[in-house]
């Protein structure tokens, strides 16, 4: 790999800074989809207005030195299709947590997420020089689990009955990928 390799531009997508003016409406629409919201967070879901989404972007901007947040944009037409972020960074121990999602069901299963994941992992290991990346998801997110495992993540922790949704309990699942595993792939 040469230093000239593009970190932020792939074949299908690019990793871009969030652009509140352009993106707030799109992201507000995603927050009205309970299935989407329940895949990305354990917090009670709620629909957010474009103005509220903009406030969140401002908070991200303020937190710029503690988290690395990217909008995922389609190379074809530059529209917003998702996000990927690294936070909970411990520089001492070389670890961070990855969260990512593709916002609209129409954009899933098309390889956007797969490419974005490879790009953010390259950023995490090649630019931030981290030792390991963790990810947290839920038993019911079967698709997300498969997605991460296919990229080499291993299930490390199963927190029994952590999540209570729709009248039943689901395990919380922690996955991890070490730099050595990523390099050998």
């Amino acid at each position, binding site marked *: 790999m040469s230093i000239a390799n593009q970190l932020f531009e792939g074949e299908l997508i690019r990793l871009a800074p969030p652009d509140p003016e352009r993106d707030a409406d799109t992201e507000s629409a995603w927050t009205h989809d309970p299935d989407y919201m329940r895949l990305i967070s*354990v*917090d*009670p879901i709620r629909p957010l207005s474009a103005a509220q989404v903009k406030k969140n972007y401002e908070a991200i901007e303020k937190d710029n030195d503690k988290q690395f947040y990217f909008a995922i944009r389609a190379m074809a037409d530059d529209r917003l299709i998702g996000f990927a972020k690294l936070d909970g960074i*411990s520089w*001492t*121990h*070389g*670890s961070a947590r990855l969260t990512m999602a593709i916002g609209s069901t129409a954009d899933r299963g098309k390889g956007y997420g797969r490419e974005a994941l490879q790009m953010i992992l390259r950023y995490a290991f090649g630019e931030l020089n981290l*030792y*390991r990346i*963790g990810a947290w998801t839920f038993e019911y997110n079967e698709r997300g689990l498969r997605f991460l495992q296919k990229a080499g993540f*291993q*299930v*490390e*922790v*199963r*927190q*029994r*009955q*952590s*999540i*209570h949704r729709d009248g039943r*309990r689901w395990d919380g699942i*922690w996955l*991890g990928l*070490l730099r050595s595993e990523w390099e050998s792939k």
Partner: protein
Amino acid sequence: MGVSSWQGDLVWLGAIESEQDAAIVARWSRDSEYWRLRDSAPARPITAAQAKRDWEADGGRAAGAVFLAIRTLVEDRLIGTALLDGIGWPHGFGWLGIGIGEREFWGKGYGTDAVQVILRYAFTELNLWRVSLSVLATNARAIRAYEKCGFVLEGRVRGLAHIDGERIDEVFMGILREEWEQIRHAAQ
């Protein structure tokens, strides 16, 4: 309910008294082994004033979260601190953290007793469904104590800590309310 629910067999848990307790916590902070077992933040000695500021900064915890002093029943001596936070309310989960700063009280059941008091609070006052914790895989003493309290191994996060040039796993454990109740009934 005659006896305070904050009271165990060896210790009682109460509010931090920032004036008196800060100097003691500052003394513990010189013990890097204690710090490294307790927390993954880089070890550093702190002054009493810094300890006080840290407590005050922690004021914005979620409802139900508590940060408590662990004191001996016999001499009313501060020997450690305990924390229950990271509470996820709709789901009923919380995270436990505990440290015994006074080394002479290590390995004698004081930490175990304090954990049991915290679990009673978590399950009978907050009505949580489960309590989680994480601990360095090398901290066998703590893991034994947590197992004694009923915590079950739920997994290992590989190489999460980098200490003295070595990669160390972090062990994750959890206890469900029903498990805790069974232990309590068996003890009665």
